[in-house]
């Protein structure tokens, strides 16, 4: 699956996007655990619930199953307009 990072999340991951494919990741909660292990500095933001998640360009709040060709985006609260 493709993971995209935006705004200051990119400063923590040092990446705009990456391909992650692991048997361990079957849903969003498992992806979150994987991401925090890979980027420990995201942990405090995850805990404070400031991160937003979108799967295939739609906001997702609850846990949801993921498939290999999903595009997941992780970003902070928006500030457009």
């Amino acid at each position, binding site marked *: 699956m493709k993971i995209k990072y*935006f705004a200051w999340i990119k400063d923590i991951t040092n990446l705009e996007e990456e391909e992650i494919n692991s048997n361990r990741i079957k849903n969003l909660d498992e992806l979150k655990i994987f991401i925090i292990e890979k980027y420990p500095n995201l942990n405090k933001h995850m805990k404070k619930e400031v991160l937003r998640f979108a799967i295939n360009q739609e906001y997702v709040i609850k846990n949801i199953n993921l498939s290999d060709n999903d595009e997941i985006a992780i*970003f902070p609260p928006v500030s457009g307009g």
Partner: protein
Amino acid sequence: MIKIQEEDFNSEDEINKIKKLHSNIGAVSSFIGYVRDENNSKEVTSINLEVYQEMAYKQFEKIINKANLKWKLEDSLIIHRYGKLEVNSKIVLVACFSKHRKDSFESCNFIMDYLKKEAPFWKNEFYADKNEWLVNSN
């Protein structure tokens, strides 16, 4: 119509292009957002506006569909810029086209509310000596 672009736009031209298609439009309500020279008591020099484009198009379409269910609109327009924007630059134009004023007025505000809360754009504000990511408060 939805446009996500780096370039500036001319609101008269953009509104005219749509108005021309409908002779039964009596009311166009619009909102233009600009980069201000000051925010949270800090002097702003410019902003860099990041966007998740595919998602922005999808979310704008959804909100326009929602607005069409709630109000009687003949047409609607969202233009949102991204990239480096100097102070006084336009950021966004939302225009709603209807027969009567109430529909255009209320839907324009509704779209702006939603856009501020959910459109995937992020402002990185530049000051004389540093820069900072913003969060929308309203």
